[in-house]
């Protein structure tokens, strides 16, 4: 039962994840690019963000950087959504403050749900 923000430039993906996550009872907001993403982070104040890397108008890395710059936003766990499986890109994201990453074409929506649960549990404990 958490507030989750999904930022991804693919509307089909947004719809899928929104459906999946709301079926689990989470409150879901979506954003289609980095700019909208930042706005919604400030307005919506989510408990978790699913963040795509490759997006127009500000990519995932930039969003991460901005979030790290803010005291409150720093605390929000971020899961990177990506199709690249190059370790270097993922590492970069992790260095920039992402909590973990999800490889879209490898993991099923159920697995994503599980992942999210684990992350939220961890942050709740902290």
């Amino acid at each position: 039962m958490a507030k989750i923000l999904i930022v991804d430039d693919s509307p089909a993906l947004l719809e899928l994840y929104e459906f999946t996550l709301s079926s689990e009872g989470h409150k879901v907001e979506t954003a289609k690019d980095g700019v909208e993403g930042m706005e919604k982070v400030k307005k919506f104040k989510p408990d978790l963000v699913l963040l795509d890397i490759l997006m127009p108008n500000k990519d995932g890395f930039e969003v991460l950087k901005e979030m790290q710059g803010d005291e409150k936003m720093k605390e929000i766990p971020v899961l990177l959504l990506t199709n690249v499986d190059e370790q270097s890109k993922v590492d970069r994201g992790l260095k920039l403050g992402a909590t973990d990453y999800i490889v879209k074409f490898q993991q099923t929506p159920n697995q994503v749900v599980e992942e999210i649960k684990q992350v939220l549990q961890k942050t709740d404990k902290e």
Partner: protein
Amino acid sequence: MELAQIKGWEAGLVVLIFVVSIFLGILVFLKNRKDKSNIYFLGFSLSCAFLILFAYLSEFFPRTIPQLSLVLGGKLVFSFATLLLIFFFYFSYVFPVNKRLPYYFFWPFLISGLILVVLCLFTPFIVKDIKLQPWGFNLVYGSLYNVIFLPLSILLTIASLINLILNYRVSDKLQKTQLKFIFLGLGVFLCSGVFFGAILPLITESQEFYRVGNYSAIFFIGFTAYAITKHKLFNIRVIITEIAVAILSAVLFIEVFISRSIAEGVIKAVVLIVATYGGYLLIRSVIKEIEQRKEMERLAKRLEVANSNLLALQRINNKIVSTLDIKKVTQEIVDSIPRELKYVGGFLVLVDERHHRIKAHAISGGKILKRISRFLKKPFTDYSAPLGGEESAIQKAIRKVELEFSADLSEVVKGAISTKKAKAVQKILRIKTFAVSPIVSRGKVIGAIIFALRKEKEKIKDEERKMMSSIADQAAIAIENAQLYEQVEKINERLKELDKLKNEFLSIASHQVRTPLSIIKGYIHTLSDNKKIGKLTKQQERFMRNIQEANDQLINIMNDFLNLSRIEQGRMKLDITKGDIDSIVKEVVERLKIEAERKKIKLLYAEPKKKIDKINIDESKITEVITNLVDNAIKYTPEKGTVKLSVKKIGKNIRIRIKDTGIGIPKEFRDRLFQKFARASNAIQVQPSGNGIGLFLVQQIINAHQGYIELSSEVGKGTIFNLYLSYESGLKKGKEIDATKLSKKGIIRYREHKYNYS
């Protein structure tokens, strides 16, 4: 021998000498009437002849003629001696170098000589009287003998010798030989003259033999005549033969002369003629032999020249073929011109078809280049002339495809540099001739080599022309090779570029394709398994499954493509961790169980009896490998077959075995099995789809892990893949591997044993 005989002999000898001297003098004169040497020779040979004659005739005078005549005889002898010395002096001045006798030598000596002759003949100042002796007589010399005659004769003799020596020093080889002969003759004459005229009388106290010294003058005359006329053929064998024949003829002649009866005389004359003719033939054959030998020597020399030319060409060739760089090749060619041909140097031009120009390409370096560098405002290779403009020697050579010569640089390079500059350059380098040799490659003229020589065109031998053409031929081949190689290199570059583009394309395409694939995957999973959507009908479930499988296949293909391009770029990175092979195999089996069941194939895993220790591997990649092999096994095993997996620790290795009862791999196909995009013919029959990348990647991954693969197969029976991974691979966590390097042991091995594949 009786005195009479000896006297007879002597008479014959004198006649002979007289006749021969005059004969030789006339012969030499007739041979070349204009040459002063010949004229003076005639003079002194005549003088010598008469001198000897009168010296001899004096022998008769005491007995038959009054005393005055004896004195006259003596006077005549000394007159002729004077004339002889003067003529000889003149001769020594002009022979053999053909100097003109200056008037200050000619007239004074002639006049003083004539005066002396007059004095001698008509006054008692030189020869005054005779004193009768038991054996003959002695001459009594006049008052002026010691004052005029003796000094003059000594002066003339010494001056003649000095002349000859001076002439010797400026003579060429042939002339020197001629002079050597004269010295030889002179030497013989002087020696015998001194011996018989001075030494012997001292010993025997009689002047009886002094005349022999005079007679040896014939040698002097003979040798000199020889030197003048036979100046081309100085060979010791010929000379000895000629002397032998001459002596024989002389002896026979004298014999005729002293024969006592006409009959004897006739016989001896016949013998003389036969012998002389025989001798003549002998001399001719000796000369012929010598000439032949000389011809052989000449040919041998030509052969030697040709041989050394060949060696030079070989040296040039060796240097040229050692490089495929066109700049180096052409530079090597022009540098060989001064080095091998010993010319001043040269340069090379090539035809540029596209721009319709003749372009300078290379010039022989070193001192030449330095000296003319101040005339070259731009680098040498920037010079060019239009093709087909005013015809230069270069253009002519190219048009006629022939070796062209020119004595004028401005004519050679017309159109490229100004006439003034060309003339200046030529002057500085003292070049007399330019030779332009066209370079012909495959029937077309592609350029020319220009040779610069310091000798006239006429002095260029045939062999040199051939050399120049040969060098141009070598240049043609070398340039063609270099150009072809350039093309090949360009093509290679292009291919590399294309390969790179292909990889980049694959990368980008794969990435971009993944997005929709992942979306499809997500939706299918959600549609199949979500509470909100609800349960599907059996048919819907089945259809969903089909879509999912197809989608998974797509994802796998994309993964393979990406891996492929990454491997080709050498970028396979291994994420090394301590992995548990047992659990990996279990996972794979679990995942592929469903598919195996659908094909009614038994997929079994024989768990290891002892626990297998963890090993440093890239788990995801090894998983991929095992998945690929099991997938293949399932694909290529017909229904109701079995696929068995097992894991075993053998020494320092882990062996993962995948055994199937499938269609097997034919022997012919083995070598290509692990290549990209290769699929066996029987495989295509069974399973038409399948991109054939899988085994290639399997190989690369095992290779990167320093492991190896063992393969056994029998068509129709089955296949066993044994994967070996080593605990001592040296792989460490986080290590990056360059996938292009091969592992030491060699990756794929084949075992021929007949296995039980079930």
